[in-house]
């Protein structure tokens, strides 16, 4: 089964045999790929019970938990990579969650949808309505995404906090676009961060 494009980027860039914590791991697709293809010690946290049961049934170590509350129980620098894919925008305090990721992991992968993609901009500009797109398919009143951010917002936040961007990937569908064009053209961003 092919991984979602942002997960494929992460899977390709995690060192083999690394210890990994995937926060908001969903049904465990990335964890299973990291375990089976890269020999990683892959563990997860997921808020939805049905997803957790699915992960455990796949033989993965996953804790039912809430990124906003339960990351505090992980010891410092206990994994090589802490991963937050498509989850940042659903947390109550993305800034605090990011700090936790970099406390627990020596490095952190963060992926999120870019709210400044041109389709979003044109939707707001021409219809005056919150966009419903391929990546943001749910209407404003029922979306789990409560903290929309853009590529530039995220760049600002990590700069202000003295977090180092080791690498970044910008995706439209499964194709890449340049950092310069990312703000306008990227549907998705993946950052590799460290302190």
């Amino acid at each position, binding site marked *: 089964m092919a991984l979602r494009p942002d997960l494929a980027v992460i899977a390709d860039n995690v060192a083999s045999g690394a210890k990994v914590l995937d926060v908001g791991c969903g049904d465990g697709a990335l964890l299973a790929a990291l375990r089976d293809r890269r020999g990683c*010690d892959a*563990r997860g946290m997921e808020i939805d*019970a*049905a997803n*957790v*049961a*699915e*992960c*455990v*049934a*796949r*033989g*993965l*170590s*996953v*804790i*039912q*938990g809430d990124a906003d509350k*339960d990351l505090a*129980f*992980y*010891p410092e620098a*206990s994994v090589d990579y802490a991963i937050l894919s498509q989850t940042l925008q659903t947390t109550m305090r993305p800034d605090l969650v990011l700090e936790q990721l970099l406390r627990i992991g020596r490095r952190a992968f963060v992926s999120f949808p870019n709210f400044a993609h041109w389709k979003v901009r044109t939707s707001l500009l021409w219809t005056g309505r919150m966009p419903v797109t391929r990546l943001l398919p749910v209407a404003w009143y029922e979306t789990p995404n409560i903290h929309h951010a853009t590529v530039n917002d995220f760049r600002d936040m990590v700069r202000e906090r003295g977090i180092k961007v080791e690498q970044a990937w910008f995706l439209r569908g499964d194709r890449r676009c340049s950092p310069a064009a990312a703000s306008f053209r990227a549907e998705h961003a993946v950052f590799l961060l460290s302190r």
Partner: protein
Amino acid sequence: MATAPIIDPSKVLNLPQPLPLDSGRELEGVRIAYESYGTLNAARDNAIFVAHALTGDHHLASPHPKTGKPGWWVRMVGPGKPIDTNRFFVVCANVLGSCMGTTGPASIAPDGKPWGMRFPVITVRDMVRAHVALLDALGIEQLHAVVGGSMGGMQALSLAANFATRARAVLVIASTARHSAQNIAFHEVGRQAIMADPAWREGDYYSHGKGPEKGLSVARMAAHITYLSEAGLTEKFGRRLQDRAEKTFGFDADFQVESYLRYQGLSFTDRFDANAYLYITRAMDYFDLAEEHGGLLANAFAGSKARFCLVSFDTDWLYPTAESRNVAHALTAAGLPVSFVELSAPFGHDSFLLDVPALDRVVAGFLGEAQ
């Protein structure tokens, strides 16, 4: 029947050496009744130990030889089941202090009379010591997994903490790392009911033909309520009347729920010894894994390399989800691979014994994962 231990033709181990206890005492001549299913492989590494709950026994997946009742976990254990006896050698032993075949207060002491209240107070760790002695006798150095629900989960956690190398995986269902004030309170109600029954005779009722059946029955009724959920009781009984059209303005079992509880209480006295109930509930109340290890639960697992899985049920108010989450957090802090999930099921604490398909998937997935 509550007057003698139930002896059945199951497998028995007579411990040649005395069993040391947490109280500082030693117990000589311990007899352990157990059952096994499947085949131990040549490497002796495919064994799963299943620990039973308070009033359970070792007849896990086969009919009880005396009562003919099906094993208590047939839906989970057997060929092709989540705990697959085609693949695993599954062992279940009656706990120390019980009355289903293993030595307990109804057993005969060295002086030829039943132990009664002279039986030493035991702990969950003492039960686990007896299990480990059985594993030694069976030549099983390391289990593929130890599995338990409720008090069985406490034994699984205690084994992981105190005999860290004996299990590669630990599966704990609807359980806790310590008995709460509420847990102790309900048990104390049960014990007081037994001890308030004149037929209890300070525990020395074995020669009188009849034990404290009324007291034991009330103890079981109170405990049984804690195993169910409010919604489950409402759905099953509501306020419906028992075989009558109107209230009788008396104290008969007017309501179906009363009749049900009375039946549960009475039938329990046919199969369980009142003193065993006192001793085992005491052991559960004394259980506090953090306290055993300097007050910090994470320290209890410092020597462990096992994988863990904790499952709770959203309607279980006896050992609610917070208890399992607490253990999961401690294991996380100890750096161990742990899974934890709260499953949705309507049956309260008893959900672990009943039809919850998600539990089957979790159990099969967790145990099937090769180490």
